[in-house]
């Protein structure tokens, strides 16, 4: 009786796993299809990747995505680390309020955040473009970076800092030579998470980019909503997917190395 139950449970779980993976695997497989029609398999080919990499607008979108994400990641990492210190090591009036304010950007529906930023830019007369996109990404990426960095800082053994100080190192020196090297994997993991949320973002980017600026998600969305599915879009989606997964693997390694 129990055995049958376990078998049913295993079979059920296998089906759910299949549900999670089959669409992604099919998307990747058919990016290598030689045929113009997406789902009619005509043999293995790299031709959609070749045409993708020959398309200068794809490179521009790729370049835009990367530098916006890099800027977002850098700023979020620095501000996130500073704020994490405050939240972990100090107690002050209004801390609970600040704490919930810092989680707001994670909780609020992104579409409302996106349009509020658009209205803000319209109201203040800031012209839309690359910078307005980065500003918007940083506004929610700080919170994501903060969550990761904060978690690492909580488990920090402060006696090493005291040792450094009793040996004559000042605050700044202690921070850069003792504290930072120890929490660095957490800081970088937070920065990578900020990079990923920026790199993957569609909604906020779409609202704040203006007509002349395109990132990879904007391009994928434009192609998917205009012409539906195509092997070339599969190729672009696959490249984007591989980059996301690589970022995640590095992040996972980093957070493990510290624990």
């Amino acid at each position, binding site marked *: 009786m129990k055995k049958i139950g376990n078998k049913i*449970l*295993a079979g*059920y*779980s296998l089906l*759910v*796993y299949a*549900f*999670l*993976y*089959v*669409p*992604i695997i*099919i*998307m990747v497989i*058919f990016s290598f299809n030689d045929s113009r029609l*997406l*789902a*009619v398999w005509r043999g293995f080919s790299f031709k959609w990747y070749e045409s993708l990499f020959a398309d200068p607008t794809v490179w521009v979108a790729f370049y835009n995505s990367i530098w916006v994400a890099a800027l977002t990641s850098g700023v979020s990492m620095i*501000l996130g680390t*500073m*704020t994490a210190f*405050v*939240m972990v090591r*100090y107690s*002050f009036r209004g801390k609970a309020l*600040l704490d919930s*304010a*810092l989680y707001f*950007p994670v*909780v*609020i*529906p992104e*579409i*409302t*955040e996106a*349009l*509020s*930023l658009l*209205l*803000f830019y319209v*109201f203040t*007369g800031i012209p839309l473009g690359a910078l307005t996109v980065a500003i918007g990404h940083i*506004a929610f990426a*700080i919170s994501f970076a903060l969550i990761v960095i904060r978690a690492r800082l909580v488990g920090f053994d402060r006696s090493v800092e005291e040792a450094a100080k009793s040996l004559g190192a000042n605050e700044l020196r202690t921070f850069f030579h003792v504290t930072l090297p120890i929490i660095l994997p957490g800081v970088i993991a937070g920065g990578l998470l900020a990079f990923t949320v920026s790199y*993957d973002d*569609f*909604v906020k980017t779409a*609202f704040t980019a203006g007509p002349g600026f395109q990132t990879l998600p904007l391009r*994928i*969305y434009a192609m*998917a*909503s205009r012409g*539906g*599915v195509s092997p070339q879009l599969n190729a672009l*989606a696959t490249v*984007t997917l591989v980059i*996301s*997964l690589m*970022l*995640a693997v590095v992040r996972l390694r980093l957070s493990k190395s510290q624990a």
Partner: protein
Amino acid sequence: MRKSLQNRAGLLASPTVIYLAIFFFAPFAIVLLYSFGMIDLLRQLRPVFTLEYYIEFFNSVVPGVFARSILMAFATTVACLALGYPMAYYIAVKSVRRKETLLLLVIIPFWVSFLLRTYALMTILDVNGVLNVTLSSLGLISKPLNLMYNPQAVLLGMIYNYLPFMILPLYASMEKLDKSLLEASGSLGAGPLRSFVHVTLPLTKSGIGAGSILVFVPSVGEFIIPQLLGGTESFMVGNLIWTLFLKARNLWFGSAVSIILIALVIFMVGIYMKRISKGEEMTI
């Protein structure tokens, strides 16, 4: 000493606080001003305070769209729970090494953006997609099925994207479950079903709560999935807001709709937080 510590905390936190005040909270204040008609066409503040956009809300079709979104989010949550609960249990009772692998397989889809995963579903459901081509080459259908641009496709897309958000907190609560309690109830004569209803289910309540809120709250305001997989009759609040702002350019009414959505989300999260602080622990 205490004063200098306070100052240092203020110094370290202020860049983030100022940044969020300008680029996160001030924009919401502007949405509020728009929703009360306090900003005019020329982007100037005007000494007006009107509730007409909120009144318009209740006289429009928008409450119906809200109801549809909530219904869709509810259906998504229930389906994710039904799919995720047995699977989380299956992972939780495995040996440590297999557990790690199985859990990683749940986390990997997390690393792929909603846009890409929704597109992956399109490659299957599209008129020229894998399912239609396969079925017609097998001679099972004579003309392609319309699998996209309907509420079912949106629901499928929502479940597909949100499922990992449900499984992880469920798993976390089951992991902590003391297996000896199940043995105890078994040895006292309870069958598997009875043990499940009276032991497992109550003890994993916190995971069910956390998973449900993680699925339900963001799915009410979901944009990408209904936009790509749905037709106009399956549009949700997020799509409506998008249309009001970027297509219709009705900033005032759009702002009122957004404020109502935000209020709804804060209300739901607030209820949940209150329940947690009353004694139920959070598992995420």
